């Protein structure tokens, strides 16, 4: 479904990504691991259209989205759960969710999707009228996920979903990710908790200094020397 081919990204003169290739299939969770500063967030932003690719193609179901501005990328079924959750704290939980359904297609179906999201995260329903800023970190992560689901994505980009969350909450978040994948959505996961990422995903990519250094099933990756040294610290 998602195919990234030969993508470069730059910040001014500085190049952050070098010829990145990757793909994600429907109902598949794929993780990207690598040291800080390897370009993982840049990669997610480039796919989401928030950063312009300097070269290469990014196709979603055959449509090249690499040149589209950020607000057009979601039209092709790509939704993002950004690092640090970034819910709209001054808006209610429900308004956050409805915002997720901003694009016309999602807007038309927003009632049904909203019900589905509440089924997945009952706690959001309880708090629908509360300001998102008053939620706990775990609840905010649920909301960020729910908000992305409201966009009826076929591809979900998850950037550091466990960041700053208590273990008991991280469990819930990863359960929810699994549930989402089960509905047929492709998930691209960036996660510093490498153990978690490798166990949640079926395939993975090792990104080092803006280049894909290794790729394969997570079970294989775990055993590779460079992964163990560079990201697992063993």
């Amino acid at each position, binding site marked *: 479904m998602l195919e990234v081919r030969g993508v470069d990204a730059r910040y001014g003169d500085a190049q952050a990504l070098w010829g990145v290739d990757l793909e994600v299939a429907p109902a598949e969770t794929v993780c990207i691991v*690598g040291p800080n500063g390897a370009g993982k967030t840049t990669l997610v932003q480039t796919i989401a259209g928030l950063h312009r690719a300097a070269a290469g193609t990014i196709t979603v179901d055959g449509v090249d989205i690499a040149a589209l501005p950020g607000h057009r990328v979601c039209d092709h079924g790509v939704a993002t759960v950004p690092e640090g959750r970034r819910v709209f704290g001054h808006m209610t939980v429900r308004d956050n969710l409805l915002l997720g359904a901003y694009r016309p297609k999602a807007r038309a179906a927003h009632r049904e999707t909203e019900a589905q999201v509440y089924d997945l995260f009952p706690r959001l329903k309880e708090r629908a009228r509360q300001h998102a800023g008053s939620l706990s970190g775990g609840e905010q992560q649920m909301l960020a996920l729910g908000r992305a689901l409201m966009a009826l994505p076929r591809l979900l980009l998850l950037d550091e979903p466990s960041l700053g969350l208590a273990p008991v909450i991280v469990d819930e978040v990863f359960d929810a990710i699994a549930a989402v994948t089960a509905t047929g959505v492709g998930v691209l996961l960036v996660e510093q908790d490498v153990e978690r990422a490798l166990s949640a995903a079926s395939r993975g990519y090792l990104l080092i200094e803006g280049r894909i250094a290794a790729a394969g099933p997570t079970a294989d990756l775990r055993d590779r020397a460079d992964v163990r040294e560079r990201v697992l610290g063993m």
Partner: protein
Amino acid sequence: MSVRKGLSILAGVALVLAVLAHFNTSLGIAPYLLVLATSVLFWVIQATSWNILSGYAGYFSFGQAAYVGVGAYSVAVLTGRHDVGYPVSILVGGLLGALLAAVTGAVAFRLGALRGEIFALLTLAVPFILAAFVRINRDIDGGLGTTLPLPDFPGWVGDFQHLIFLLMLLVATLAVGTALWVQGSRLGRGLNAIHDNEDAAEALGVPTFRYKMLAIVLSGALGGLGGALLAVRNGAVQPELVFTLTVPLFVIVMSVLGGRRHWAGPVVGAAFVTVLQDELAAQELDQWGNIILGAVLVLFVVAAPDGLFGRLRVRPWLTVGVFVPVLVGLLLSGQYTELDAILYAMVAAIVAALVVDRLRPAPGAVSSPAGHLEPSAAPTEGARPTEPPATRPAGAAPLADLPQPAPPPVPPVAQSPPGELVSVAGVTRDFGGVRALDDVSLSVSSGEIVGLVGPNGSGKTTLVNLLSGAMPPTRGTIAIGGRTTTGLAPHRVAHTGVARTYQIPKPFASMTVRDNVAMAVMFGRTGASLASAREAAVRHLATVRLEHLADALPDALNLHQRQLLEMARAIAAEPVVLLLDEALAGLNPAEIDDAVAVIRRIHAAGISIIIVEHLLRVLNQLATRIVVLDRGVLIADGEPATVLRDPAVVRAYLGRQRA
């Protein structure tokens, strides 16, 4: 350039100007240039006065007219109505300006929330109030205006124009000298830190309230003196003259156009805008004059959003190289008056600098990629242009591949006597109706590393904020090393030996990594000078192995490096206890191991540590004790192994994943 040298050059320039003005007739300088120069100096005073608070510390003020008005009316009332001599009334103008500033500051700065636009509105209101007060009060002038007598002055001064020029020059020199001195002093560094991140500055030991008060009082005194001289120059004072919005608007225009972070910015801005305005008025353009002025303003702000001086300074030779030939050329052509020539030469120099800047951006003027997520994921290559390539291991991530030299030991801290270091007794903290901490008691002995864990929203960060003094407890007391810190300002708490890091790093964005750390040394318990603080900073950077990035700006650092910078800054304050608030969040295992090693080194130097962390693997390695909070209540406190088996802890926090 040292401050002292700067001041002596400034004094020299002032002296030259004074001599030129004194002999203007014999030198053939048109008397009108003296008049114009007096106007320029007035605006230099006001723009500089504004800049000391609003530029350096970032507290945008719309109240400059208040100081001008108070100064002018001091002269109007004392000299115009009560025959008090000019010298006294001018000084009183400065004093009252300072007093007014002190009152404004005391109201605004006592309340931490009065920042940004709220502070701006507060200051906007002050001139309105004063204007109304003058109009109501017939003992002042009831709004009728006051005329002033011609001052007496010794004959050697020359005529009145010489007198007022010299007075303005004196105060302008004082103002610019003050701004120059402030910029190079601890006060200036502190104000800069306040501008970048006030909370972090306070936590590092910067006495923010005192510094802001100092800045606003200096600003008020200089503004008041300038206003008093305006009254003398004009010979008449009306409320419409002094309490007008055009004063703050033009002062802001001048300072921002010139550049707010450097003392010379307002000087350049004031000179340029005043000369331009004057030239436009003299051209008999009527409305077109203001239209051109407006257009120039729009163009230059768009072209140089961070101020003209910054652009000129990057290329001094280009600036002078364009200015001087154009000036000389125009003068020799005989077609232009001196003033036209000066103005056109200034415009030519500015335009040249801006155009060249556009074509070939100067080093150090890298603009951050606007409109994108903060570049925490910025690449490790490039983006650190100030760093000489040789010191960077080519093609390697800075941390992981570094050869592991024996890191220098953290300088040992004056050991506090063993025993209770941190004591938290019955502490409760409410936010509105929500109780974030409920009757928490906790004690930390020296040498411990205490892990603080709990679900999100359980009160961990609140406890860190209470310990660092960022907020007071609703009830209960906190003591550090036997000394009660409850009720102390955060910078005082810092001086008792508490340092902290922030969950989301809060570096001072306008300072290099080295200076970020040097700030902590300067404002820490020992209070070193900037020069020695910079040396010490390099040592602390070596402890966290960031020394190769000492000259980079924080924007160019990735998350891990920023968190290391937070730690370097914290230990630079030479604390006895260090509060680490999720300092490892977002790091991958390899980086975590690296950070853990740093923390161990810090601990080995005798610093006790309280660490908030979700990663139990880390706490198991590091902590001597674990404390668990749940919904504001302390539910467990003890050995890591014991605590992590506690059923209540498992239920509330750990879930199915055990340590």
